[in-house]
């Protein structure tokens, strides 16, 4: 896995995207996949920024083999928040009746192949897998 630490701040989204682009390029993936990977990371990371109140930094790791990409976000010193257990958003409801929030996790579920959550020693670890075309 290639890992880098980023400040818990929305200003990290752009450097995270550059980190992703460099990693995808090193694996020979089509740069078009950057959109999907960036979106998954943004939706999970912004939840950590807004709700985590943990340490000053979050770790982002990328790995996998062949066509498989593994994305792992590690958030230290936080209360548990399991995005895999978040209630599903009903996107068929009229727009006036939709509640705020939840859409980011909904999009992550649509884009990811698998998503898992672990919590240990006040550390949240979210792991997403995604199969990409080369």
């Amino acid at each position, binding site marked *: 896995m290639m890992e880098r630490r980023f400040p818990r701040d929305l200003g990290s*989204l*752009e450097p995270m995207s550059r980190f992703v682009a460099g990693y995808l390029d090193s694996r020979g993936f089509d740069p078009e996949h950057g959109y999907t990977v960036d*979106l998954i990371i943004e939706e999970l990371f*912004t939840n950590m920024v807004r709700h985590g109140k943990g340490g000053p930094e979050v770790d982002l790791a990328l790995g996998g083999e062949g066509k498989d990409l593994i994305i792992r976000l590690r958030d230290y010193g936080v209360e548990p928040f399991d995005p895999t257990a978040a209630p599903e958003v009903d*996107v068929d*409801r009229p*727009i006036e009746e939709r509640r705020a929030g939840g859409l*980011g996790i*909904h*999009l992550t579920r649509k884009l990811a192949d698998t998503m898992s959550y672990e919590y240990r020693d006040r550390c949240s670890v979210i792991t997403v897998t995604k199969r990409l075309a080369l």
Partner: protein
Amino acid sequence: MFEIEVLGDGRIRLAGRLDAAEADRARTALRAVSGPATMDFEHLEYISSAGLGVIVESYKRLHDAGHSLKLVRLKPRIRTIFTYAGLDKVLTIE
């Protein structure tokens, strides 16, 4: 980088990346729109749920005031995100 340009004739040009870090800037710029509007997505490369939220807020505000909001020239990957969010059935997307 994200750019938004609100033109006097109801056209709005979006460019770059509309992510959570840029959503407030987009929201502020779109408050200047008070009539029928067309958002041109030709140069928008990326949008997340935070960006979708800004578009939906603008749609609701304009719709409640009796005005239309049309989204045009979306890249296929951007359109897919609107579809996943169920917004393709709500918003006017051409």
